[in-house]
């Protein structure tokens, strides 16, 4: 990767079992990595040469350079 990517997101789980899945960069987007966060756990994830998209399921707060988003509760 030529440019050092500093883009990252912060995910804080608001409930147990929040899923974070990284999707591959390239022609086909596969789920290449997953992570389970329990309530209060924080993950700081970078976009890399392998990961071009990140999918989050469950109740969580997500901070990006564009602002803070929280996922909707399923209740």
């Amino acid at each position: 990767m030529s440019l050092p990517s500093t883009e990252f997101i912060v995910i804080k789980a608001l409930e147990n079992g929040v899923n974070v899945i990284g999707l591959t960069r390239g022609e086909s987007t596969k789920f290449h990595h997953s992570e389970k966060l329990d309530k209060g756990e924080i993950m700081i994830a970078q976009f890399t040469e392998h990961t071009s998209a990140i999918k989050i399921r469950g109740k969580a707060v997500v901070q990006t350079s564009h602002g803070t988003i929280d996922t909707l509760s399923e209740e």
Partner: protein
Amino acid sequence: MSIIAMDDLEQQCWECNEKGTISDEACPKCDGKGYIATALGQTLLDFFKRHSDK
């Protein structure tokens, strides 16, 4: 967390809901596995692969 649970090692694929297939084709998101390894799962898998064949 003192004991590793299965969902610490792998998570079910959102695309195929752990079936591994979508309309009889291998799921393109998980390559038909139905599950995606976590960092912990991948670490254990790499460890076993390196040490199990001797």
